[in-house]
């Protein structure tokens, strides 16, 4: 029989016992729906997690330190052997240029962090100031910004962390657009007798004239207030409350904790960095960049291994979800077997007639296969639709829940085309396997006996 005739006969046969076949098909649909819902949840959560993590900046960053830095502080690991320490290159401006030339590097920036006094509307508070690189603009941290990101890398602007903004004034949004004054210690090459009586002056004295620090004041405009801490992802591991553009921060020459160390390691004239953060174009470039940096003679590390762990976790997670989903489909396939075996009993005579009219065993087998496949296909389509709806419902419910807690909504379930097609193909495959036994039994039926059967 031709495929078209087979399909026609199969569909006709399915239509005749419409209730039973619909129920069987519904069983498959429920099985496929549960499978699709489970897997779409897995896919959705994975996409959500990797998107968040990629945008957090943790996974496209390589943190570079000089072996000398650790050696100088005496806290080096086993890698920082004394020999290595002595010959190690300093992490200075030249090194920064070198690192920036590595392929797929977007930006190289030092950690800029210093303590300052913040004067706002007469009040004065101490806090730490962090320099933000341009590339941090694309991390998720600024999604919920009130106001805007810095207008230029050298702008005299600050962004405040929300809780800090609340400390400064009654509401978080009130300082927006106003000005504040930062009081900080400037590092200068020549010794100077500072006018202000601060401990910084005392410290400068203790250093013995290599460098000295001078108190300075500068006025900044408040352009934004943000909820989360963007500095977590840029190599400084959080804690920032006031953010300035990195270029601005560098031009301030503010005294940093690293200065003391740089001084002690013997190159006070040239500024060196404690750490540099290298931004990769995408997480997949990180490994190559890390290797290139190590070749240059610096220490480098990234959180790439953590993403590997994450991928393994999601593979196992998907597998488990898939297993639970498949369970329902297994039950559904038993339904197919039952329905088709019943159909053989009912249609014994019809099978006998078909054989008497010249149907081969193969024709009869194909007919039963076609019926099983048709149920699988229809059930699979309905199931994909149902699974998608369940996923949408889950997303909707989650969004409601998040909204109640004043959090941004997320897409926790996703049905990509490969999942939809795969689920339908899987349903057909399972149905065909379920049809194996009934089809073989129908094909083996002796026509003489089948025709005698009343």
């Amino acid at each position: 029989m031709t495929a078209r005739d087979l399909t026609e006969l199969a569909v006709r046969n399915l239509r005749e016992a419409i209730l039973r076949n619909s129920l069987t098909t519904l069983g498959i649909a429920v099985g496929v729906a549960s499978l699709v819902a489970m897997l779409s949840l897995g896919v959705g959560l994975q996409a959500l997690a990797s998107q968040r993590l990629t945008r957090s900046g943790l996974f496209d960053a390589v943190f570079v330190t000089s072996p000398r830095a650790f050696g100088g502080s005496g806290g080096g690991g086993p890698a920082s052997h004394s020999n290595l320490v002595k010959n190690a290159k300093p992490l200075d401006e030249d090194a920064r240029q070198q690192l920036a030339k590595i392929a797929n590097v977007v930006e190289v920036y030092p950690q800029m962090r210093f303590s300052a006094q913040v004067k706002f509307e007469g009040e004065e508070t101490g806090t730490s100031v962090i320099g933000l690189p341009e590339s941090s603009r694309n991390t998720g941290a600024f999604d919920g910004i009130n106001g805007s990101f810095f207008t230029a890398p050298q702008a005299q602007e600050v962004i405040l962390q929300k809780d800090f903004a609340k400390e400064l004034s009654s509401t978080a949004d009130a300082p927006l657009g106003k000005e504040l004054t930062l009081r900080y210690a400037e590092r200068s090459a020549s010794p100077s007798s500072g006018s202000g009586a601060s401990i910084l002056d005392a410290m400068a004295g203790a250093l013995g004239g290599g460098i000295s620090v001078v108190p300075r004041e500068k006025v900044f405009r408040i352009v934004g207030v943000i909820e989360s801490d963007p500095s977590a992802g840029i190599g400084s591991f959080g804690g920032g409350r006031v953010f300035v553009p990195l270029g601005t921060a560098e031009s301030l020459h503010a005294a940093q904790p690293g200065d003391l160390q740089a001084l002690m390691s013997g190159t006070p004239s040239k500024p060196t960095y404690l750490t540099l953060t290298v931004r990769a174009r995408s997480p997949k470039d990180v490994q190559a960049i890390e290797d290139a940096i190590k070749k240059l003679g610096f220490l480098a590390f990234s959180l790439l291994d953590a993403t590997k762990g994450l991928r393994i976790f999601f593979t196992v997670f998907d597998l488990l979800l898939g297993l639970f989903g498949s369970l329902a489909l297994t039950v559904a396939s038993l339904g197919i077997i039952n329905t088709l075996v019943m159909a053989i009993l009912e249609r014994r005579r019809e099978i006998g007639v078909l054989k008497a009219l010249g149907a081969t065993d193969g024709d009869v087998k194909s007919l039963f296969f076609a019926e099983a496949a048709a149920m699988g296909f229809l059930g699979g389509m309905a199931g994909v639709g149902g699974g998608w709806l369940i996923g949408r419902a889950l997303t909707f419910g989650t969004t409601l829940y998040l909204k109640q807690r004043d959090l941004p909504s997320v897409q926790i379930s996703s049905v990509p085309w490969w999942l939809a097609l795969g689920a339908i193909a899987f349903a057909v495959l399972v149905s065909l396997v379920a049809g194996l036994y009934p089809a073989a039994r129908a094909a083996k039926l002796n026509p003489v006996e089948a025709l005698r059967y009343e």
Partner: protein
Amino acid sequence: MSNNGSFLNAENVCREFRLGESVVRAVDGVSLSVQAGEFIALLGSSGSGKSTLLNLLAGLDRPTSGAIRVAGQDIAALSSPELARYRRQTAAMVFQSFNLLPRMTLEENVELPLRLAEVDRKERGRRVDEALERVGLAPRKRHRPSELSGGEQQRGAIARALVNRPSILLADEPTGNLDSKNGENILQLLAEIQKSLGMTIVLVTHERPLAERFAQRFVFLSDGKLTGEGAA
């Protein structure tokens, strides 16, 4: 080809059935020749083995021993798919209980052998109409079997048997479920088909008077053995 030029030649055909410990010989050493275009009737009481013999001739069953040559090939030696093709193209059957598929219209029932033989779709409609025309059921082709009388159903079954243009028609008690008037009409129809198409017909029946009016030759079976012959 068979030795004496006959269309169908059965040689010492046996068919045994196992019933627990005992072996029943339903057909016991039957030898029979049928000429092309002949209308022959197998007569016998129930249990005489005439239906079993007919199933063997139709290729629905295989003999335990012996050879059945039809149009030059031994159908006892055919493989299962070859035997299916024999049923599809060479031998067609008509049953006592009509055996039209109840879920299909008359037209679709008649089309079924054409589907199995993978006849071109355009050709099918024409051949279905032709077969239904021959049995006088063309106007009723869209009806389901349950909407037809017994006689109509049997004529429909004959149309289905003819549609693939077989060379031999095997009828198993075709009048058994019909009243005498309708039974006579069916045999009349078979006789017409024999004459107009030159069809070879083997009729199994226990109604001797009816067979005598239409068949050219009778063969009597009893306990699986041939017990006699007669001509009209």
